[in-house]
Structures are given as structure tokens and as C-alpha cells.
């Protein structure tokens, strides 16, 4: 965007060097980024209005920012603010979900809402002729959402599924643990969990909306093809009836003050790769000298040319990617380094991170390194303010952290003014290794010895519960299995979801290579899950093949055990990645649990413990099978005398097996999801 600009040419020309013969040409003089005047006013509802007129294309972005974000979630119901945001456009007092969706489709309008820590942003994108209708719908969903029960239920299910997916990813596990420990009791560290989102009720949403979706303290940012005065009038008309209210105070206790490094390991048994996060809190708001720190950070870990990547990937080969970032919000900011490394080099990686930080803080930065990074920051900035959406987004963000109105316009000049002395001084002042929080997710038994030189190593599980060193081992199976007396069999099951039959499943047991091939296929709706496990006669895994297929996506994992390692390849949405796990003797996969029961002698009260690998998530755990009672159940194949067996572990379930051996599975039900398999034929 051009208007009044700030001359930069001289500064940057100095950074460009003359071209070698036949080499790339040197930079031309820099063109200016300018912004049209920003119009500020107060709407009659009390909301603050910021308008940036920009008429290149007939398109407008409106961001409405209301106070109240995740920090305002009721205790134990974390996730409420996000629910409210997601449900706004699912129905209002005067419009159904279908009516809203139909009107948006008809005019090519898009609406979205998301909760951040201290506020929630509702964004409207529309062409100029569709703006008035868009504003009416925007005002309606903002002021009068109805939170229909069925939509609340749907959102709760989606949120739970999303969190379950997250908890299976090593990087997300590390991120969540880092955030929690970093903020301590400060509400920025509050995160939704499957328990907290399950507790959210419709009334919580109504209350949250009534309290926080208020015009006092709200900011409306408009960028695009509008006349500032006309859009103010339209907003006043659309938002009539939006009344100020009294908002509760939120208590912001002090975040933890660290005076020495804190080390936390999130235990993922058997993992051979670890995710590493290192960092600490920074001051929040629009702090003096922020650009110096931005440049220093860019030198340390701004992508491939950054020092962390050059050293940890290039020189040492410990990792594929290592980056650092500085971010800031109204009250607090964060400095954070993120990387991943093989288990055996985690200690060395963390040590190298400390060394690179120290080098940045204490040694002079070469001039050419600084000018390259400054040129990158200055050069890439204009791409982030090209469209009205981007401009509105940037203005909103800068406004909310309390930056002055011209901060965006002068950003490039302020970056270009940073020199080597200022960048180094900023690193020394802001980045404090003695305050580092180090969070590593991986196999704690192998990580603890590497990390203890940094200080006491606290070990927790993925739920945040403390673990002792004695809890870490995954031992061999509690008994030796003998499957040699089994006979081949084919069983079919109905897949029952929420009480209705939604698919079919089969289990095929057949001899292979002196052991058994146990193939299972589940087809429900449009998805198919195929698993094939080959075991020897003692139930020990030989190889496996898992495949999940749907029309537009597919995941596939193939593995093989050799000695105390399971290796193979997983092809996920984001491409192939290797599987490599170290495992105890007698290891099997989750399907092997059924075989363990099938081939054992069972009686009420019996417990079987065995190591189970999850090859997709890359972890091993001890699973306990306990025969709880003898009872009778009816399934499509008939009524059976059964043992009810509880199955512990990451995916707890109940398996009913025939009481008379061989103990074939009659019914299997998940403890966490409303899904069950019921025997339909065979057995």
C-alpha cells in the first residue's frame, strides 16, 4: 500500500554489494511501502473503529475484536471461548444455520471467528457490493447467536477428536508441555483438554457470550474499498442493540520467575526421536528496541540460513530443522527455539543450543551476516501487507499489543536501522540462558542421563502427571504365550457407532511362516482401516502393515521387528517418514491383544501384562489385560457366555471373549469413543 512513505533506499543500497562478472545483478533502489491515512473514531456502541481505505479492488475485510479469549475460560471448562467463536455462525435468534450459510454462499461472503488469549476476532471478507449484507449477518451472529444444542454437541465432538489427534503427535505434546510450564499459573498457559471440552455446556457459552461479547473494549478494523464515514454509519446501524456490559476482572498472577534452567521430559516410551523446546518469557506489549531482538533472533534461528540450522543440521547432522522465534502479546512475550533430534544426540543438541545462544550474546556479529538477514526481513515484509485481509490482520495485531498507529508503516525503516552492535546488545539483554525452560518429549529413560547436567530433570507423562525413574521401564510380557494350538478362523463383526450399525469388520487368523497372520479390516462409512499383524507362536511381532484409506487421503505404515527394534515406514498426509522404535522382548501391537486372550487360559481375576507398540505414534507401553467377570451378552451372532476383560493403556477398551476356549472376541468396545465391534458370524 502506498501513501506517504519512508525513504529506505540509501540504507539498503549500502547493504547490496556489486555484482561479480556474470553473477546476479545488485538490488535496485528500494520502493516505499506506504499506508493510506488511518481513520480512527468511536462507534455509538462504544467500540473503537479503525478504517484503512484502500480501493484497488472492490473488496473489504472487517475484523471485529471483542475482549475475552481463552484467559476468560471458566476453570475446568477450558475451550469455552473457542466454542463460542466456532458456534457464532451456526444459528442466531432470527437465522438458522442453513439460512446463514445460504446467504453467505449467494453473495460470495466468508466469515470466520477464532479466540486468542485475551480476545476473539470475527472476520468478514466480502466484495464491496456484498458488504452491507455481510455487515448485517456479522452483527447478527455477534450480538444474537443462539448456540443450537445439536451444533454444540457437534462442536464438542470435533474438539475432542482434534485434541486426541494432537496428543498423538510428538511435536504437539512438546508444545503443550512447554506452554503449560512456561506460564505456570498465568492464564496464558491455560489449554483445553478432552476433559475440559467435555465439560463445556450450552449455558457456559451463553454466559461467556453475554459477559465478553461487548462493545466497550472492542475494536473494529476495516480495510478495503470503503468510505470511512459511510462504513461508520453502516456499522452503527448494524450494531444498534449492541450494549456495553460489565466485564469481570481477570486475575493475572505473575508468571514463573526462573533463576536457573528447568528441564522437563515428557515421557514417550520407546521413541527414538525427541522434540526439543527451549526458551523463556519476554516482556509483552510494545517494548522499546523490539526490532533489535527481531534481527538478533533472525541471525540465530530464522530458517535455513540461521546459525542453529547451519550448525545443528549442516555441521553436526543432529536435526533437519532448527528455528527460533520471538513473539509478543499484550502482557507477555516468548522467546522459543524448536527442533527435533535422534534420542542419542539430544543432550549434545541442547548443549549446542546453549552455546549458540552464548555466542550470539557475547561475540561480535559479522557485518555481512547482519546485512543479509536485515535484507531478508525488509524484503519479505511487503508480501505480508499485500491484500486488505493482510493489512487488517497486521493492523489488528499491532493495535492489540499497544503499538502506535504508524508502527506498521515504519517497520521496515526500523529494521533497516538495526546494526551489529544493537543486535548483539539485544541478544545479551533479552535472551537469558539461565532462565531457559527446556522441554523434551521422548524416551525419558534414555534422555534423563543426557540432560541431568543441566539440572534436575522432571519427568511427566503426556497428561502432565509426574513420573519417577522407576515408572519408565516397559518390561517384557508377564508370561510366555503359546499360540501353536490355535486353528485358523474367520470372524465378521458389525461396527456399531452410537448405537447404529455403520459398517463391517473382519478378523482372519491363518498360519504363516510357522506363526500366524492376523488380518483385520474395519470399514465404517467412507473410511477403511486395514491391519495385518504377523506373529510367531509366542505372540512376538514379526511384521505389520496398517492402512487407513478414505477417498481423499490415505495413511500407511509398514514395519518389521528385528531384535529389539521395530523399523519401517509411515506414509502420512504430510509425506513419508521413517518408523524406528526400540522395544522390549515379547512386544506386540494392539491387535495382538485379542490374540493374547484368544490363545491363553483365562479365569476371573487373571491379569496379563504385555508390551505393546504403537508404530504410528512411535511409542511402547505396558498394557494390562484383566479378566473382570464372567457374564452373558447378546450380539448379532447370538447370546454368549463371556469373560469381560478390561484393557488399560493409551486406548482403553473392554473386550468380551467367549468364556470357553479358544477365547474368541465377541464384542470390543472403546472406552473413549462411542464405537463397538459385535460378532456377526463365525467363532
Amino acid at each position, binding site marked *: 500500500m502506498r501513501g506517504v512513505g519512508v525513504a529506505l533506499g540509501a540504507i539498503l543500497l549500502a547493504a547490496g554489494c556489486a555484482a561479480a562478472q556474470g553473477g546476479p545483478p545488485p*538490488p535496485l533502489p528500494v520502493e516505499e511501502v506506504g499506508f493510506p491515512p488511518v481513520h480512527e473514531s468511536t462507534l455509538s456502541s462504544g467500540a473503537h473503529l479503525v478504517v484503512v481505505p484502500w480501493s484497488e479492488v*472492490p473488496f473489504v475485510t472487517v475484523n471485529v475484536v471483542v475482549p475475552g479469549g481463552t484467559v476468560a475460560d471458566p476453570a475446568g471448562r477450558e475451550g469455552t471461548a473457542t466454542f463460542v467463536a466456532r458456534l457464532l455462525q451456526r444459528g442466531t435468534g432470527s437465522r438458522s444455520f442453513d439460512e446463514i450459510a445460504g446467504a453467505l*454462499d449467494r*453473495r460470495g461472503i466468508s466469515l470466520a471467528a477464532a479466540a486468542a488469549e485475551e480476545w476473539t476476532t470475527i472476520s468478514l471478507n466480502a466484495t464491496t457490493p456484498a458488504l452491507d449484507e455481510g455487515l448485517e449477518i456479522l452483527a447478527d451472529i455477534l450480538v444474537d447467536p443462539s448456540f443450537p444444542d445439536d451444533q454444540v454437541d457437534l462442536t464438542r465432538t470435533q474438539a475432542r477428536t482434534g485434541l486426541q489427534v494432537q496428543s498423538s503427535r510428538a511435536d504437539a505434546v512438546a508444545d503443550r508441555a512447554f506452554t503449560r510450564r512456561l506460564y505456570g499459573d498465568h492464564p496464558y498457559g491455560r489449554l483445553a483438554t478432552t476433559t475440559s471440552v467435555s465439560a463445556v455446556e450450552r449455558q457456559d457459552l451463553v454466559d461467556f457470550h453475554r459477559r465478553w461479547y461487548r462493545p466497550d473494549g472492542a475494536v473494529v478494523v476495516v480495510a478495503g474499498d470503503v468510505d470511512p464515514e459511510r462504513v461508520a454509519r453502516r456499522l452503527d446501524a448494524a450494531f444498534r442493540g449492541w450494549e456495553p456490559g460489565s466485564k469481570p476482572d481477570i486475575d493475572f498472577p505473575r508468571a514463573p520467575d526462573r533463576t536457573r534452567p528447568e528441564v522437563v521430559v515428557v515421557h514417550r516410551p520407546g521413541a527414538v526421536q525427541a522434540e526439543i523446546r527451549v526458551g523463556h518469557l519476554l516482556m509483552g506489549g510494545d517494548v522499546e528496541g523490539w526490532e533489535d531482538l527481531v534481527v538478533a533472533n533472525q541471525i540465530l534461528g530464522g530458517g*535455513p540460513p540461521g546459525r542453529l540450522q547451519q550448525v545443528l543440521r549442516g555441521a553436526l547432522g543432529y536435526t533437519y530443522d532448527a528455528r527460533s522465534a520471538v513473539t509478543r502479546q499484550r502482557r507477555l512475550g516468548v522467546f522459543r527455539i524448536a527442533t527435533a533430534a535422534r534420542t542419542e544426540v539430544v543432550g549434545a543438541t541442547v548443549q549446542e543450543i546453549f552455546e549458540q545462544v552464548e555466542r550470539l550474546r557475547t561475540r561480535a556479529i559479522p557485518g555481512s551476516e547482519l546485512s543479509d538477514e536485515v535484507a531478508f526481513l525488509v524484503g519479505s515484509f511487503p508480501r505480508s501487507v499485500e491484500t486488505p485481509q493482510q493489512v487488517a490482520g497486521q493492523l489488528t495485531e499491532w493495535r492489540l499489543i499497544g503499538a502506535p498507529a504508524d508502527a506498521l508503516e515504519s517497520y521496515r525503516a526500523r529494521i533497516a536501522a538495526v546494526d551489529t552492535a544493537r543486535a548483539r546488545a539485544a541478544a545479551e539483554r533479552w535472551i537469558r540462558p539461565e532462565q531457559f525452560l527446556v522441554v523434551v518429549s521422548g524416551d525419558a529413560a534414555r534422555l534423563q542421563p543426557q540432560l541431568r547436567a543441566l539440572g534436575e530433570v522432571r519427568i511427566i507423562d503426556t497428561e502432565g502427571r509426574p513420573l519417577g525413574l522407576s515408572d519408565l521401564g516397559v518390561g517384557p510380557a508377564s508370561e510366555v504365550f503359546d499360540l501353536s494350538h490355535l486353528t485358523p478362523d474367520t470372524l*465378521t463383526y458389525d461396527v456399531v457407532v452410537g448405537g447404529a450399525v455403520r459398517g463391517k469388520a*473382519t478378523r482372519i487368523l491363518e498360519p504363516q511362516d510357522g506363526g500366524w497372520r492376523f488380518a483385520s479390516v474395519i470399514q465404517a462409512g467412507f473410511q477403511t482401516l486395514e491391519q495385518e499383524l504377523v506373529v510367531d507362536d509366542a505372540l512376538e511381532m514379526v511384521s505389520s502393515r496398517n492402512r487407513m484409506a478414505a*477417498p481423499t487421503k490415505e495413511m500407511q505404515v509398514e514395519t518389521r521387528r528385528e531384535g529389539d527394534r521395530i523399523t519401517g515406514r509411515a*506414509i502420512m498426509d504430510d509425506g513419508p517418514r521413517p518408523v524406528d522404535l526400540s522395544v522390549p522382548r515379547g512386544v506386540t501391537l494392539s491387535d495382538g491383544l485379542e490374540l493374547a486372550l484368544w490363545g491363553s487360559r483365562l479365569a476371573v481375576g487373571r491379569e496379563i501384562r504385555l508390551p505393546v507398540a504403537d508404530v504410528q505414534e512411535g511409542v511402547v507401553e505396558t498394557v494390562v489385560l484383566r479378566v473382570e467377570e464372567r457374564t452373558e451378552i447378546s450380539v448379532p451372532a447370538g447370546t454368549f457366555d463371556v469373560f469381560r476383560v478390561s484393557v488399560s493403556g493409551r486406548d482403553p477398551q473392554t473386550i468380551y471373549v467367549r468364556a470357553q476356549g479358544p477365547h474368541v472376541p465377541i464384542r470390543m468396545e472403546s472406552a473413549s469413543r462411542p464405537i463397538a465391534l459385535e460378532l456377526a458370524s463365525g467363532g
Partner: protein
Amino acid sequence: MAAVPVAAQHESDALVVPPLPLETFRLDNGLRVVVSEDHSTPIVAVEMWYHVGSAHEPEGRSGFAHLFEHLAFEDTEGMADGDFARLITRAGGVYNGATDADRTAFHEVLPSNRVNLALWSHAERMARLRVGEDDFVTQREVVKEERRLRVDNQPYAASRLSVDTVAFRDYAPYRHSVVGSMDDLEAASVDDARDFYRDFYAPNHAVLVVVGDVRAHDVREMVEEYFGDLPRGPELPVLPPAPPTPRTDGERRRTETDRLAQLPLVWMAYTLPPAAHPDHRPLALLTQILATGESSRLRRRMVTEEGAALDVVAQVDRRTRAGLFLLGAAPVEGVGAERIEGLLDEEIARVAAEGVTLAELEAARNQLLTGAVTERMTVEGKAALLQRYVLFYGSPDRVNQDPARFHEVTSEDIRRVAAAYLVAANRTVVVVEPPRAAGDGW
């Protein structure tokens, strides 16, 4: 009070897609150049399209255009290994490449004061690329892996290629896939690659589009400096025209088993005329009316009301010499392919008999015009749009008139194109079936 004319009222509310300023010129060596100034943000999109794609590959050399796209990121005389990526990235820019049946595209977006870097690097790649044996072997393996990942290992991906194979069985240029066959890729040699480079990567087969905060005059000077001395490439045989559409020789049908598929899928593809044909305008509106948004005809009928399909899509695949109107639908469990075909036929017949409602027409027009506006919001979007115009129409001139012409399309136009093209004699049906499972046969 004077009455306001209805037309004027309509005018004030109508979405006007803003015109793009255009400067075009051609160098003596045949390089065509389009510059569109946009001084709103100090960035520039530089996009080079070579008018060579999989359609130009001779028999036994499928996948070559795409393989060469990969090679064009390797060394040149002025840029050693990895320099291109490093130079563009360090300047604050981004880059990419893409290949389809008709063209191979290379583009960058970067600060406008580095437009010279982008232009220079394109000249390097056009004239001074080093096609080494090692790079060739490496990139051939990368492409083979890409084929394994994107085609051989994706449910239903092979069937989309089958649609082309069957629909264009009498038109060789469009019969094979862009990514090519494993055998052809394996048989390719570095000498083939060098010949291909010499013949096709020449100024007379390329179009350069520059959009952003630059002056057309300055761009022209730089283009003359970097490209002016490059020699013309050999003239190449012009592709023959595709057989006329709509075909009248009857429905073509193939049923195939996809080992990765778990449920059937139905493709219905109707051949269309070349991209420049005016019937593409009502056809574009028809795809919106049939399958964009929850209230579109096919979605409402097949997914919501009848619960017969999990998903349904409609799209037009436009190419320089022909096109396809493509419908795809995935039945829910227990619903057969015949039922899906029956429902698609019924809805098409309804359009062919009765046309569409004014409300549907207006919604479809709003969606397409909104798309036209957002496409023109970024320099990258505008550069690709102008390239498409040169490729399809031979010049970018119509780009500023075309959006408004959506207003001229009537319900009768849509009825007419549905009745003309979407008929059994002109279609290819590919039904994908999952493999029969061992055991009880479900």
C-alpha cells in the same frame, strides 16, 4: 422526486472487477512480454511460461516436460548449485514451478527492487542451464518418487488419469499423464533432456509476465538487456487440433479396480471445445450451480436429501485444444454406481430441459465474480491470470472485458450448453470399484 432508472440502481450495486493496466511487447527473438503495473505494494510477480507441456511429448517420452521442470532449478553458468533458491529467498522472495498438459510454469514473488534478479535468473535458466548427468539421475528419481506418492499410492488418483486416457483415446497429446509412466521415465537419458532443453526452452516458445510495483519502461530495458541476445529456438510442429466436440460416436465406459479404494467412485466426463470457446462461460456458471456450496443442486439432492452420495464435485478442465466437464461422485456404503449415475443423469436432464432459476444464476455469478476479484488482489494471482489469457487466447487483451460478460449469460444459455455437451454420446464414464476382499466377499 425524479425516478432513478432501474439500470442505474443496478449499476451502483453491481460488482465491477477492476481493469488491469497492460503493456505488451515482443523481442526480435520471439519472446512475448506482458507487464501490468500495480504500485500498491512494493513487490513484483515474475512469471515465465514455456508453451510446452505433456501434450508435446512424443510417444515413449511421457513425463518429460515435468521432469525438465525439476531440472530447471539446477545449476546455470551464473548460478552454482542451490544459488537460485538462496538468491531468491535471501531477497525476501518465494518461488515455484508447475507443469500441465499445455505449459511449464516458473514464478517468483519478491520485493520490486529485485525484479532484475528474477529476470536475470530466468535468462540464465533459459539460455545457460547446465544439464548434468548427476542432476538428471537425481531428479529422475525424485519424479519417480513423486509419481509413486501422488498416483500409485493414492486411492482414485489412477482413475482420474484413466478418464483422460479414455476420453482422449483418439487424441494422443492429451491421452497420457503429466507425470508420465515409470517405463518412459526410466528410459529417458540425459541426452534426451539436453535435446528437449535446446528445442523448447527458447524465447520464441516462452511468455514472460511481470506484475507489480515496476515501470513497464524499466522492465522493457531489463528484458532487452537479459534476453535480447538469446537466439531463437527451432520452430516446432504445431499440435493438431482435437477431434470436434460434442462427440457423437457414443458413450465410452470403463470399470476398473483400484487396489487402494474401499468404496466405488463414479466419474462422468464430457468432452468440451478448446478453452477459448465462448461456451466455457455458461459452463463455468453451471459447475457452480451443480456442485458449489451446500445449496447447489447435486449436493442438495444427492448428499442432503437422498443421502446417496458422500461427496460430489463438478469442474471444468480447460486446455488449449479441448476440455472436459467433469462430474465425480462417491456413493455412501450400500449405494451402487448405477444409482449415482441415475441421479447425475436426472439432474443434468432437468437443467437441459428447464434451465436454471434466476436466483441460482445470480449466486453462481456472484461466486465467480468474487473469485475474479480475489484473483486480482495479489500480484501472483494477476500474473497467472495474464499467462492463462496468453496461453488460451493468444493475448491478454480480453482479461478486462471478460468478467462483466458473466452478466450476459442467461438461463437459456446454460440450458443450451447442458443439452449440447452433457449427453451420453459425448461422455466417458469411469467407475472405480474396490478390490473384492478375500473371505466372505464383502
